[in-house]
């Protein structure tokens, strides 16, 4: 027969029904014979049954709150660790960043110094007032290099030379469109060179400077300087009266311009 001490160690498990069959049998045999143990077991059973065993259930909001809090704490822990000022990682990063910035600054400085100022660049400024009218015939400069930067009037005739000075034209890119009257004959480009623009090229070719062609796109103003033989600008032997314009800009009719004087 089991002792009361040995059986007493089984009371808790017996109350919850967790005893295996052999121990259950051993305990039952003992309490059948021991009234004290039987009474004690009964009291304990009543006390335990008095204690509620349910626990509150989690609500959906509480579940969500737990999830968010846990995920937030995890994310906070996964943030990059602060690097000390004198740590190797910081020094390496600082050195690399400094090198990149220095290389960029040096490259920018070199690029700015070596970049030449483009010739014949046209600086566009505010459009001129309509009341101001510039003469249709512009005096060509002596050399292309001396041509100053000028504003482009929007409502006046733009000399072809200045217009084409934006970028060096190619032979096949230049289109001379005649929109004037039949009296005025268009002049074809001479050897692929636009009058005036080909000055430097002719100089390089050793052209006679005395026969430098002054270029007049329209009929010159009487007493205007630099009236030239326009025939030399086009096909040789083609004599063209100074009264007749050599060339007109595509967008403006020379007749209208002449009538406005």
């Amino acid at each position, binding site marked *: 027969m089991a002792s009361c001490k040995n059986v007493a160690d089984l009371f808790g498990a017996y109350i919850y029904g967790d005893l295996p069959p052999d121990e259950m049998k051993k305990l039952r045999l003992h309490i059948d014979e021991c009234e004290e143990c039987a009474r004690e077991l009964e009291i304990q059973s009543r*006390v335990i049954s008095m204690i509620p065993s349910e626990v509150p259930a989690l609500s959906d909001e509480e579940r969500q*709150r737990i999830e968010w809090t846990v995920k937030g704490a995890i994310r906070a822990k996964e943030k990059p660790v602060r690097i000390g000022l004198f740590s190797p990682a910081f020094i390496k990063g600082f050195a690399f960043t400094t090198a990149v910035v220095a290389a960029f600054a040096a490259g920018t400085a070199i690029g700015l110094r070596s970049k030449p100022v483009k010739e014949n660049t046209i600086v566009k400024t505010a459009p001129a007032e309509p009341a101001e009218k510039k003469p249709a015939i512009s005096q060509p400069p002596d050399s292309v290099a001396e041509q100053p930067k000028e504003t482009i009037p929007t409502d006046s005739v733009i000399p072809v030379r200045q217009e084409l000075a934006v970028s060096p034209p190619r032979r096949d890119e230049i289109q001379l469109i005649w929109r004037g009257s039949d009296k005025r004959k268009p002049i074809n480009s001479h050897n692929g060179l636009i009058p005036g623009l080909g000055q430097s090229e002719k100089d390089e070719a050793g052209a006679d400077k005395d026969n430098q062609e002054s270029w007049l796109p329209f009929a010159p103003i009487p007493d205007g300087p630099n009236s030239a033989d326009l025939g030399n600008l086009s096909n040789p032997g083609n004599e063209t009266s100074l009264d007749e314009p050599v060339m007109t800009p595509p967008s403006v009719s020379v007749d209208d311009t002449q009538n406005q004087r």
Partner: protein
Amino acid sequence: MHTDENELLITRFKSGESEAFDRLMSLHMDQVFGLAWSVLHDREAALDATQEVFIKLHAVLPKFDSTGNLPAWLYRVCLNHCIDIKRKTRNVGLELTEEEWDRLQGSDHDDPGWFLQNAELREVIKKAVDNLPPRQRSAFVLRHYNFMSLQEIAETMGCTVGAVKAHLARATGHLRVELAGYVGIETERVQDNGKL
């Protein structure tokens, strides 16, 4: 089945699937909260304790053996955490509302006197459970509130099944001494082995 799912989820988490941890959390959240509440008897504290347990789980999960007993580990961490909290807040009174206890008791009494008597009973019960020694309280809470088997309790507490039985027996003996008067039984001195 549950064990296989735990093992699969741990393996997936180790391979980089963060959603596996979310699934683990949803699987064990109720049990962990229930255990925390049964020790602390405070809803907010139990929620905080539950969060702490899963934060700790995420930290150790990469090194956790997928074949290990994850529930036992969770309950152990929860128990230790809650017992530490209990030690720090030993004099804090019960914070459960009457409505919560009424729901727990399953009572639908309309007599105000009954509620008053029950309120006193609630306080006494919780005090009695709180006064249990840590190992006995752990064994009692895991069995009474979490319905864990003796084997599971042994794995959680890190002891043998026989030790769990002994802890449980002593816990019921102490509770018998504290609460016997409320069941109409004269309190008698009980020795450690539960014998009168």
